[in-house]
């Protein structure tokens, strides 16, 4: 194993995996360059539609957010292959230490927040975090972040809602229905609203944060350009057209909105997923039910 790691074949596979990891991003950037017309003024709009497929109920537009999601998935897939390439029980490499650390961390996070019953949720929570974080980070290479599309984040929230409901129904459907009339019967409508509000709030929080980030970035950039042309507009030639004031501040905003906010929202979304699923699951009742089943057999 060990001598194999320094062989030319091993290094070639490594290089191939890294290339395959980067290629989708380059492909996305090329698509963006080819299909985006030069901007005219300030434009705040959703993702670009490449083409539309006719489907029952509603036509399906294949947009930038879909394509960028797929780019993230393919890149992450090759990243996984790269990270697990040359795993060794006795001679761990640097990248293996990183992988082990990450996996230990997600497992610990899940078992701390959800309890032992949900230990198998670690890859799911990691998938939410990775997809959300990398989608938001796509703005760093100038691509449209899929997380600022309501449909994308809404889909994730819907899936989480389905999981919450599934675990609430673990003790039987009647138990689930009854849980709405607690602690007092007349609170039922409020409980219902709260139940529906969960996925909606999750979706809108994530989507709103990312979208507002890009909106603010665009607005600030446009304002700075206007200000710049007002102050330096009198200068001759190129000096008059160059937006000097756009140097600096947009970069700071980008660090905040693209990196910090994107990672934070990914973390928040994953945390909320864990907390909602774990808190909705009636663990005590479920254990009692299992005990009763064991007793009856």
């Amino acid at each position, binding site marked *: 194993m060990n001598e194999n790691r320094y062989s030319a074949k091993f290094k070639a596979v490594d290089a191939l995996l890294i290339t395959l990891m980067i290629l989708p991003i380059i492909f996305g950037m090329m698509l963006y360059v080819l299909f985006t017309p030069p901007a005219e003024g300030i434009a705040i709009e959703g993702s670009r539609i490449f083409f539309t497929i006719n489907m029952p*109920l509603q036509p399906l537009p294949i947009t930038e957010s879909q394509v960028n999601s797929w780019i993230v998935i393919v890149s992450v897939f090759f990243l996984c292959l790269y990270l*697990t390439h040359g795993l060794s029980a006795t001679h761990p490499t640097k990248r293996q230490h990183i992988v082990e650390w990450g996996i230990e961390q997600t497992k610990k996070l899940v078992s701390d927040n959800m309890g032992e019953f949900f230990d198998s949720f670690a890859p799911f929570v990691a*998938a939410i975090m990775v*997809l959300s974080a990398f989608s938001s980070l796509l703005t760093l290479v100038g691509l449209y972040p899929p997380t600022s599309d309501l449909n994308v984040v809404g889909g994730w929230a819907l899936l989480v809602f389905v999981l919450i409901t599934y675990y609430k129904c673990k003790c039987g459907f009647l138990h689930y229905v009854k849980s709405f009339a607690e602690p007092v019967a007349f609170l039922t409508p409020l409980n219902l609203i709260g139940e529906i509000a969960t996925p909606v709030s999750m979706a809108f929080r994530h989507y709103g944060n990312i979208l507002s980030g890009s909106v603010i970035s665009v607005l600030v950039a446009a304002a700075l350009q206007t200000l710049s042309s007002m102050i330096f507009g009198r200068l001759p030639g190129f000096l008059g057209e160059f937006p000097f004031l756009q140097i600096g501040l947009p970069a700071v905003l980008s660090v905040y909105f693209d990196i910090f906010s994107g990672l934070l929202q990914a973390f928040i979304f994953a945390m909320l997923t864990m907390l909602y699923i774990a808190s909705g699951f009636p663990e005590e009742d479920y254990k009692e039910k299992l005990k009763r089943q064991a007793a009856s057999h």
Partner: protein
Amino acid sequence: MQSSEVISINIWQIIISICNLLILFILLKKFLYKPVQNMLKQRQDIIDKSIESAKQADKEAQSSKKLYEEKLRGADDEAAEIISEAKNKAQRKSDKIVASAKDKADDIVNRAKADAELEVRKAQSQIKHEITEVSTLLSEKILEREINSDDHKKLIDSFIENLGENDD
């Protein structure tokens, strides 16, 4: 090129997004968590095995240590026995040598004693003879006559015998 609205809801896009998340979940589970978990399990096995073999080796070392200690003790005993036996043998030999030497010395002393006695007796008889002769001569001279040699001898002998008895 068209753009979608900033806030728009499309069922198919939502379904695609759900599928994307599920696909990534499966990919992560299959290509990241499973291999790492297998590797960790393998490592655990290796650790367990080496601990087990270390315990085994320790046990073996203990038992062989006991064995060697026993052997060493046996060797000590044997050495003590050999030494004591050798000592006994030497003692016996020395005793024998000393005894034989004593015997020889006694023998020599006895012989010397006998020799001495013989000498003494020889000397006595010689002295007796000389005294006899001297007394004969003296008495001849005193008496001026020659006594019968035999009578004379008898006389002297009795005299000397009396003398010796009185002396002792």
